[in-house]
């Protein structure tokens, strides 16, 4: 807390007394309101001039405040821009909020401070219709170019029934296709080099090497990539909008599908954010179960990455071995949760059920089985000379670049920084477990692979500790907002029955406020920023995903390389398109 007062003091000394208002939230992030005119300078100061600077732009988002009734201690605003910065030197977050008035507000762009703000600002324009002055290329990013309205505004319909039947006559299909034609000049790309004309190659959205619906437009000089532009949004499903129409409880299955390889890892961030808002203490056993399941999904996600990365480089077999092993993980997952990829098994206040009888034997079998396989994969993939030749020195970025672009997770650790939120901001009891944070130094495709492979071993180590030290106790909190409530007493007294009925049918009413929770997900930092207006549904849910930031930086590390290298880079970055587009 001292640090929080300290930073506010520093800001006031630098910019004057009256202009900053702190806001209390349910999380540990210092939240400061800054006036629109000085926000740009405040952000620059926080990044460049303040001692122990906030070098990473962790997230930028907006809130449509017009229908919000519990305004708490915030200023009068129609739209709010939220800048979320992260300092590695301080191990501290700060949130700068800017109030905007009117129906079509605008604010100055911060792309000149952080390049990574580019996509975030485009997303806000797309979703809220807030203009960013000075943005180099402000156009829609997730929605199609011809979309009318800005989906995350409160007046925009959220359900198909509110929108009239969908029709696609031929003229409309043609005009939609025309919208997708690529005009290099719009993206600031050149048509040729000194003595060559570039060939523009449209890679995706349907392409075997892009791991999903991603479109990359390459300006090629021979096979050398002179420039690249990313076009995302083909996998956008409006998860943040849906969150505003789902009860706090029924939104959980939607989170599974954000990083669709992460399964309950997504639930993990979401339910902890809700628990923060509701003030729920999760029993120890539930915490431990959550960690164990999350680590199983880390293994499963990394195995998919491992196999497909090898396949991207042309190795045909590893993917089959790794999917077989993933199947073993899923056997355990389905024995415990009943589901496989998307079990939606975590609950507000705990998990869905207790561990089944015999779970320990299943887990133990896997712990015995897996290390030998990992050793074999090292020989098959990591030590293969062609694999090394294809990945070492390819797609390298420095630690500074990684921080500049908002890279987290294995991609950051491959640059030598041992930054893992499980260690730096332990949650759910990670501080009681022993594990190492693997790092590597070159930040290239190979080192990212090295880090992930070692993480597989560390996850197994964590699971083993969970197996040996699983505490006794309840799998769900007795807090009245834990959903669905434990059923023991429902048939015995009417009060509990009514509470149970309301909580299940209507859903819990979460007290008004804001809370944010971040976890070290499979691909990097994943966080949910929830705003409750004291309702059974969220007022606004912001899902910050690692893949979004990671994908944005890809063009900057592909210039001058070949198409084959691009595919290697895409594989090594390990994104999931659903995680990018939400």
């Amino acid at each position, binding site marked *: 807390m001292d640090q929080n007062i300290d930073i506010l003091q520093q800001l006031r000394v630098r910019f004057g007394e009256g202009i900053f208002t702190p806001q209390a939230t349910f999380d540990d992030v210092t939240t400061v309101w800054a006036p629109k005119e000085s926000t740009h300078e405040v952000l620059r100061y926080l990044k460049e001039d303040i001692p122990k600077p906030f070098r990473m732009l962790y997230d930028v988002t907006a809130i449509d405040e017009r229908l919000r009734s519990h305004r708490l201690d915030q200023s009068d605003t129609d739209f709010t821009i939220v800048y979320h910065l992260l300092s590695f030197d301080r191990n501290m977050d700060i949130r700068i909020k800017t109030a905007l008035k009117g129906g079509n507000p605008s604010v100055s762009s911060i792309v000149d401070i952080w390049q990574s703000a580019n996509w975030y600002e485009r997303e806000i324009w797309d979703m809220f219709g807030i203009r960013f002055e000075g943005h180099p290329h402000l156009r829609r990013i997730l929605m199609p170019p011809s979309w009318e309205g800005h989906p995350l505004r409160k007046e925009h319909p959220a359900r198909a029934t509110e929108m009239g039947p969908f029709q696609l006559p031929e003229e409309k299909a043609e005009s939609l296709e025309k919208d997708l034609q690529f005009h290099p000049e719009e993206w600031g790309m050149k048509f040729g080099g000194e003595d060559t004309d570039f060939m523009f190659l449209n890679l995706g959205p349907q392409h*075997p090497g892009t791991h999903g619906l991603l479109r990359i437009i390459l300006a090629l000089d021979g*096979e050398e990539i002179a420039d690249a532009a990313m076009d995302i949004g083909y996998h956008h499903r409006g998860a943040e909008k849906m969150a505003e129409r789902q009860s706090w409880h029924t939104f959980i299955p939607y989170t599974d599908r954000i990083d669709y390889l992460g399964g309950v890892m997504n639930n993990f961030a979401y339910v902890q954010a809700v628990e923060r808002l509701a003030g729920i203490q999760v029993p120890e056993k539930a915490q431990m179960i959550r960690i164990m399941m999350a680590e199983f999904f880390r293994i499963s996600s990394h195995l998919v990455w491992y196999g497909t990365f090898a396949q991207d480089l042309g190795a045909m*077999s590893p993917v089959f071995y790794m999917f077989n092993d993933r199947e073993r993980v899923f056997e355990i997952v389905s024995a415990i949760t009943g589901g496989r990829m998307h079990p939606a098994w975590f609950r507000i206040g705990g998990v869905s059920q207790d561990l089944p009888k015999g779970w320990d034997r299943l887990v133990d079998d896997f712990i015995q089985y897996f290390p030998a396989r990992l050793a074999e994969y090292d020989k098959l993939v990591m030590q293969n000379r062609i*694999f090394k030749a294809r990945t070492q020195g390819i797609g390298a970025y420095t630690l500074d670049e990684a921080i500049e672009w908002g890279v987290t997770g294995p991609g950051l650790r491959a640059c030598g920084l041992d930054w893992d939120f499980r260690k730096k901001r332990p949650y759910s009891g990670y501080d009681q477990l022993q594990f190492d944070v693997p790092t590597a130094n070159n930040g290239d495709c190979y080192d990212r692979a090295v880090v992930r492979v070692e993480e597989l071993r560390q996850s197994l180590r964590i699971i083993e500790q969970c197996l040996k030290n699983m505490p006794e106790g309840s799998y769900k909190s007795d807090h009245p907002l834990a959903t669905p409530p434990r059923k023991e007493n429902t048939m015995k007294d009417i009060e509990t029955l009514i509470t149970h009925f309301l909580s299940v049918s209507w859903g819990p009413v979460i007290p008004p406020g804001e809370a944010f929770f971040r976890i070290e997900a499979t691909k990097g930092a994943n966080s949910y920023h929830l705003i409750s207006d004291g309702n059974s549904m969220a007022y606004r849910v912001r899902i910050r995903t690692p893949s979004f930031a990671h994908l944005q930086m890809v063009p900057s590390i592909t210039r001058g390389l070949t*198409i084959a290298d691009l595919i290697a880079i895409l594989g090594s970055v390990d994104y999931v398109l659903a995680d990018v587009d939400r």
Partner: protein
Amino acid sequence: MGEPIRSIIILIAVLVGVLAIAAGLIWLERRMLGLWQDRYGPNRAGPFGSLQVAADMIKIFTKEDWIPPFADKPVFVIAPAIIVVTTLLSFAIIPFAPGIEIVNLNIGLLFFLAMSSLSVYSVALAGWASDNKYSLLGGLRAAAQMLGYEVFMGLSLVGVVMLAGSFSLREIVEAQRKVWFVIPQFLGFVIFLIAGLAETRRIPFDLPEAENELVAGYHTEYSGMKFGMFFVGEYIGVTLISALIATLFFGGWLGPLLPPLLWMMIKTFFFICGFILVRASLPRLRYDQLLSFGWKLMLPLSLLNIVVTGAIILAAS
């Protein structure tokens, strides 16, 4: 009167045999890969899935044979035929057993090298005629790759020719009665094996196709039987290179007890399986890596091989 009829019978037998082996390889490769990759592979059509080939054939013959409107039509049609024709022609010079060969050319080996040079036109032209950027890149890669490996492929065989004193494959086999050339020409064998992998455009040299990068490379726009020709052409190529390795370095039909033809088939089959195993185990090189590998490592090594072989022959005589 008897001689031409005999030739025609052999010719038809070789043609049918090679095509049958190539078609069978489609099934064999998928089964073998399944075995090595902990999965089943095709096992539904017929016993052990052996009728899979028939099913594939029915499918490929009855599929719409579509030519893209933007393609260069004549070239687009000719391209897949070239690969099948040139690889089949190469079989003309291979002695399967004493007396079982189509022609005994005294320049047999040169004929094979000429045909293999021609076959790359198939891929390069297919890539060009498709008028698709991915195909074009595939075709370009094929042309560059051909320049890279063709040179050392020819040179790697010079040692064998020097030892046998002939370009005729029959005489090369006869010259291995004492010792298979794989022993004196081990380096040549390794280089030829690598060149053979490149010739057949299989992993780690499948750059012109490179599924993950170029969708399907040079044959992206092909469908139906034209695609089938590329497909079968690849397997004929694998059979050809395996038969050549057996002939040039492993004594061809020579071997104890079993009939010569069987020996030849066993040896060829062994190398075919080797090709499939390589495909199951290795990743793909990048195109500039392949070129520098060819020019900077394989070419000097094959030249060294010639110099050393020549010196030894000189010293021995």
